[in-house]
């Protein structure tokens, strides 16, 4: 066989061109037949064929058969994006004995058929792209992928249920995990909830055992109150800088006895308790909640007398028998290595101040759903008793759905969880306070195992459901019955008339939003996010936990609103993907590194400052630049800078790109 692929030295290129119909995805807007006949006329093309689905087995076999029968040494496939199937066709090429880099793809689906209205124009554009690919592939060279060992540890960012589940899955497989959480405790939002829908099992009862497992697991290192501040490297070999904030308490010594909290000079708790959504107070030295993990107190430097004023009797330190309190603790910056990263940074809830007509912040008894979660929680500020801020019990309660969701003024998307948690809260409120509960909804969205049944149950429990978006919550009473109450004004779209419902308490079912610093986080890890701030997965259907950056995976609501079952499922998937990468032991790098032609290099050093990875040095003896291939990441910036053309990039040689330019322009 002469087709061992070294076309540059083994005579002229013999190109096979394959145009894919992709069902009708391409064929509807591109005359595939015409493009195929056109490709036949291009220089070097030996065969040109069309097929319904090139990526299918018969499609790939077609290529392989032709490679053998027609002695082909170059392959062009015009189909979808190379980001989708380049790997598939490279493998098919390689399986027929040809070097996989003698292959080039023309993107005539994403870049042509899906974005062009006119079939003739689409066909012309497809012809141009095929011509570019054919011209380019003639100059392709045989290359080999480089293998790099993978560091076996995994970094997980965020200690909510997503991060916890992913950490335990990986740790149970025997791999080491570093779990970094920026709050003083792990647990995330789930730790704040009272019950979980639709089974109504207690959130703490199912979550806290997992939290202690994280703390005790020999394979998990838990760094709470810490943040990732720098990420370097690439898939398989990340170098991560973690900043550990001072909690002014020695974590190894503290046993969580809380004697220090009792003896704090603040006799009364005066600081808003973040965990209880400000519904109760805490002291400057505190533990977020009884089952906090790690069970270590933390001192808030803003309100602590010693840390803010420099003057205090330091009774807390005196009370601690373990001498764990250390006012001189400093921020620590630690560098760690990991092969894979899982982002599980979660969400924040919508701030209803942005919809002033609902009265949050104006009327004392308008609550967010998260505040109510704390209110009905047995370990919450009222011990689980449903009471208003003045201590009275509400007799009627309104739950307003879609606050900050499905709303063109705030967020257009559906937050997915609010209908179900509103039903859950309706059930809990009814059970605990026996009040009349009114749900104001736009559409009831309850897809999920057991969800619709839960809705049915609520309908039977005597909860009122009023279909319509609430216009406003007001205290402007029109009748005696409305006096002293808040009135929910709504158009009941099922009855077809405006209504006024007087209530004692309003619960706003706030939607889910991306974390406010999602943009910084995504930049740090080199992933992208949607306009709303949700991290973007590599493929919405087929790669839902991977990102465009190899080795970085997503879990939980940082990727988009989702409930606990979906979050846990996704966290498991992310853990599996990370493990698959690590257990393979190596990653293959695209051979697109730069190199220097020593014959041409004049040693001018222009390229050296261009390299972001300091991969280029000057060999002072030979007076030429030298590229360290292990450090080169293949951006090609040095190549574009080189005034003499001595620097070149594999897969993106200057001459290959010039051919492609000429091909797409002069294809007729």
């Amino acid at each position, binding site marked *: 066989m002469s087709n061992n692929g070294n076309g540059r030295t083994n005579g002229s290129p013999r190109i096979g061109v394959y145009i894919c119909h992709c069902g009708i995805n391409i064929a509807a807007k591109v005359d595939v037949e015409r493009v195929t006949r056109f490709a036949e006329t291009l220089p070097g093309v030996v065969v040109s064929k069309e097929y319904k689905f090139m990526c299918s087995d018969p499609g790939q076999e077609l290529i392989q058969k032709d490679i053998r029968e027609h002695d082909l040494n170059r392959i062009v496939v015009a189909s979808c*994006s*190379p*980001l*989708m199937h380049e790997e598939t066709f490279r493998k098919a090429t390689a399986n027929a004995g040809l070097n996989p880099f003698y292959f080039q793809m023309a*993107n005539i*689906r*994403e*870049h*042509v058929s*899906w*974005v*062009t*209205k*006119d079939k003739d*124009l*689409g066909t*012309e*554009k497809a012809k*141009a*792209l095929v011509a*570019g690919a054919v011209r380019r592939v003639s100059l392709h060279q045989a290359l080999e992928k480089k293998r790099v060992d993978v560091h076996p540890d995994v970094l997980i960012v965020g200690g909510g249920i997503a991060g916890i589940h992913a950490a335990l899955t990986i740790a149970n497989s025997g791999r080491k995990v570093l779990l970094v959480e920026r709050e003083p405790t792990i647990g995330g939002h789930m730790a704040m909830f009272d019950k979980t829908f639709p089974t109504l099992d207690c959130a703490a009862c199912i979550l806290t055992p997992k939290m202690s497992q994280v703390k005790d697991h020999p394979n998990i290192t838990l760094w709470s109150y810490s943040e990732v501040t720098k990420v370097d490297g690439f898939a398989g070999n990340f170098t991560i800088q973690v900043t550990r904030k001072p909690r002014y308490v020695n974590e190894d010594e503290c046993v969580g006895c809380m004697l220090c909290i009792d003896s704090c000079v603040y006799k009364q708790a005066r600081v808003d308790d973040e965990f209880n959504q400000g519904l109760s107070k805490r002291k400057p030295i505190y533990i977020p909640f009884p089952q906090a993990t790690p069970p270590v107190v933390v001192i808030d430097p803003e309100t602590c007398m010693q840390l803010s004023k420099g003057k205090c009797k330091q009774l807390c330190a005196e009370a601690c028998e373990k001498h764990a309190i250390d006012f001189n603790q400093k921020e620590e910056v630690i560098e760690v290595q990991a092969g894979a990263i899982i982002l599980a940074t979660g969400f924040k809830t919508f701030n209803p101040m942005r919809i002033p007509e609902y009265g949050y912040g104006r009327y004392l008894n308008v609550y967010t759903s998260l505040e109510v979660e704390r209110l009905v929680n047995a370990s919450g500020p009222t011990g689980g008793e449903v009471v208003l801020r003045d201590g009275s019990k509400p007799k009627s309660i309104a739950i307003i759905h879609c606050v900050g969701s499905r709303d063109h003024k705030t967020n257009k998307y559906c937050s997915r969880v609010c209908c179900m948690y509103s039903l859950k809260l309706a059930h809990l409120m009814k059970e605990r306070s026996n009040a009349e509960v009114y749900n104001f909804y736009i559409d009831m969205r309850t897809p999920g195992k057991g969800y619709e049944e839960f809705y049915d149950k609520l309908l039977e429990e005597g909860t009122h459901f009023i279909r319509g978006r609430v216009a406003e919550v007001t205290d402007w009473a029109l009748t005696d019955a409305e006096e002293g109450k808040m009135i929910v004004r709504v158009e009941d779209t099922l009855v077809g008339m405006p209504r006024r419902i007087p209530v004692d308490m309003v619960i706003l079912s706030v939607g889910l939003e991306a974390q406010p610093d999602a943009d910084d986080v995504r*930049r740090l890890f*080199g992933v*992208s*996010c*949607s*306009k709303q701030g949700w991290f*973007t997965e590599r493929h919405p259907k087929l790669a839902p936990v991977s990102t*465009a*950056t190899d080795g970085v995976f997503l879990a939980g609501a940082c990727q988009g609103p989702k409930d606990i079952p979906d979050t846990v499922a996704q966290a498991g998937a992310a853990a599996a993907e990370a493990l698959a990468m690590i257990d393979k032991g190596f990653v293959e790098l695209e051979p*697109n590194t730069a190199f220097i032609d020593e014959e041409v290099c004049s040693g001018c050093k222009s390229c050296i400052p*261009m390299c*972001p990875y300091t991969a280029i040095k000057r060999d002072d003896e030979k007076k030429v630049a030298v590229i360290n291939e292990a450090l080169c*990441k*293949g*951006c*090609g*910036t040095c*190549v*574009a*800078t080189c005034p003499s053309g001595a620097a070149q*990039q594999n897969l*993106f040689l*200057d001459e290959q*790109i*010039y051919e*492609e*330019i*000429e091909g*797409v*322009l*002069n294809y007729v």
Partner: protein
Amino acid sequence: MSDAAAFEPRIVAFFCNWCTYTAADLTGVSRMAYEPNVRVIRVMCSGRIDPEFILAALREGADGVLIGGCHPGDCHYIEGNYKMLRRYRLLLKYLRAMGVDERRVRLEWIAASEGDKVQRVVNELTWTIRELGPLALPVMPQPEGAGASEESALAEANA
């Protein structure tokens, strides 16, 4: 310019693999149609785009060039897009001096999630160039000894 109505510009686009090329894929997946005049060439980073590529495209018959990279601070390779920006600014000066309308060569930062921006930018550039008309490069002085082409250029000038 009499046939300006029939004129369809040819535009070459150089898109970086990580942001703009991915964004263009998203435009496709979202089925956002745009003008079919652009031909995308993929490079790993906008920092790989040699200004000579742009000149080559104009020389080979492109009426305009679009360069797409990651937003400042987002570059997959840390700062390749800044390097492209520097070259782009210099190139514009050069193009102006050559009598090429600088609106023909456009640099845009398009993130992977901005499929709609690809649509908008390609449309805007196509419409702009449609109005500007074909890129009529001035007859280039040929190097000495170029032979026939030089003679024919001279003959043309004399005619």
